[in-house]
């Protein structure tokens, strides 16, 4: 019998970082191949036409709602589609018998979709309102919103087995999460809305048109950051128990 000693082979330098960037690149390629980019382009054009058709008085408010819906709802559904697509192709078993870490998996998916959201939102916004001084607040609002909702969508999707199951769950989750929209529509107001992540998002996006106080900005950004922390933790443990077979000793095939 051959007695090759188990030589610990050298690991390539900066493996974790390199893996993260290459899986980001691969995620973008996958999204491109599955026509996510064309879908975003069509949706953006539809949004722009909608905004053009509306009288000036409504434009600001509608723009806030539309730019809110882009990173939040689209992020949520697109990540769902992406995860279920990988589930349908039974790819996860193979991905996770490599050194690829669950955290790296989550962030590369989240960030790649956030970039897509950001590009499409900026495209819509600039083509309607041009470049202005408060574009920074706009970028912050869109990015934080996209990251949060994409993480939630990921957590929901890894728990679902079918597209229908995902749509059903998403109605429940998204309705709860976007409740503060009622306040913008002046249908209903409540102090409790301050606890919702969407309040922070809407505040930041509104600030593009009517300045908000420093305290409000701090509140909006920190509330979103905290929510992102919670959403990541939840997505991570959902992935661990539903895809990596950790929590309850395995999973149903």
């Amino acid at each position, binding site marked *: *019998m051959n007695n*090759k000693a188990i030589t610990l082979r050298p690991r390539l330098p900066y493996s974790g970082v390199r893996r993260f960037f290459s*899986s980001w690149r691969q995620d973008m*390629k*996958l999204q491109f191949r599955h026509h996510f980019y064309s879908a975003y382009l069509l949706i953006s054009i539809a949004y722009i036409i909608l905004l053009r058709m509306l009288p000036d008085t409504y434009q600001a408010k509608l723009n806030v709602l539309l730019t809110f819906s882009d990173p939040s709802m689209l992020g949520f559904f697109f990540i769902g589609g992406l995860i279920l697509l990988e589930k349908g192709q039974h790819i996860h078993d*193979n*991905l996770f*018998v490599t050194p690829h*870490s669950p955290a790296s998996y989550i962030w590369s998916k989240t960030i790649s979709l956030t970039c897509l959201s950001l590009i499409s939102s900026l495209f819509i916004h600039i083509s309607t309102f041009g470049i202005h001084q408060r574009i920074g607040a706009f970028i912050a609002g869109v990015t934080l919103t996209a990251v949060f909702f994409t993480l939630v969508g990921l957590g929901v999707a890894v728990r679902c087995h079918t597209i229908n199951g995902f749509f059903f769950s998403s109605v429940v989750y998204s309705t709860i999460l976007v409740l503060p929209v009622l306040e913008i529509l002046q249908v209903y107001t409540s102090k409790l809305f301050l606890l919702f992540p969407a309040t922070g998002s809407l505040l930041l996006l509104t600030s593009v048109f009517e300045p908000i106080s420093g305290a409000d900005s701090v509140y909006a950004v920190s509330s979103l950051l905290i929510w992102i922390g919670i959403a990541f933790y939840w997505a991570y443990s959902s992935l661990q128990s539903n895809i990596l077979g950790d929590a309850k000793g395995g999973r149903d095939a």
Partner: protein
Amino acid sequence: MIEVNQLRFKYPRHKDFTLKGLDFHIPQGEIFGFLGPSGAGKSTTQKILIGMLKRYEGSVRIMGKQLKDHGRDYYNAIGVAFEFPNFYSRFTALENLDLFRSLYDVKTEEPKKLLARVSLEEYGHMKVSDFSKGMKMRLNLCRALMHRPDILFLDEPTSGLDPVNAKTVKDIILQLKSLGNTIIITTHNMNVAEEICDRVAFIVDGEIRLIDAPRALKVREGKKAVRLEYREGTALRQADYQLEGIGDNESFLRLLRNGSIETIHTQEASLDQLFIQVTGRTLT
């Protein structure tokens, strides 16, 4: 390389244990086969060894360390080919290998070279959705090999392959063994087991009934006799002779000299028969 003691495992919503206390040791450089009927627990055992099912009972030591203490770096040292070859179907074969390759921390093989080893070099730019089952199986093997793992886990590596490709796969496995790699194969296929495994374990209902080298088993359990088929006029006849003292057996020698012999076979047991004998179950 792999030391498993009293391994028990139960799926979450199951009443009974799927694995009921397995013991086996696999030294480095061995090709070890798990044989058993459907539902015996072969794939479950493999999933535990590759760290996919974590809530097991008992001890699993791999490369000198409890499996539970291995981090994700473990996956740089093992290669896995699952029973069903799944890929990103809208990516080509090379794009898939490129993707999985980028997830490792160690040096990997050139994907084109790997494809050539399993005669897929012309299909590198074809989408995997257009691959046949046999082509996907070979691509699956490439993916498991590309980071030159020390331990290789193969679930039904030759299923869906024609004889030529099955031979290619077997040759690759033997070559890896000659390089000192350890290979664990799960299969229903007795021929694969007989041809390449150093030792096999018969597994039924989550228990190991027997572990030994295929050849030793066949010789020990089989009849020590030889069967001849020959022509007498137009009639086909057969005769059995004990191996012991066969050189002095006049009737046998006369047949050898004068008869028109068509076949000669020693009567060692086939693994199939043995399996039935030991477990009371058929393999399929």
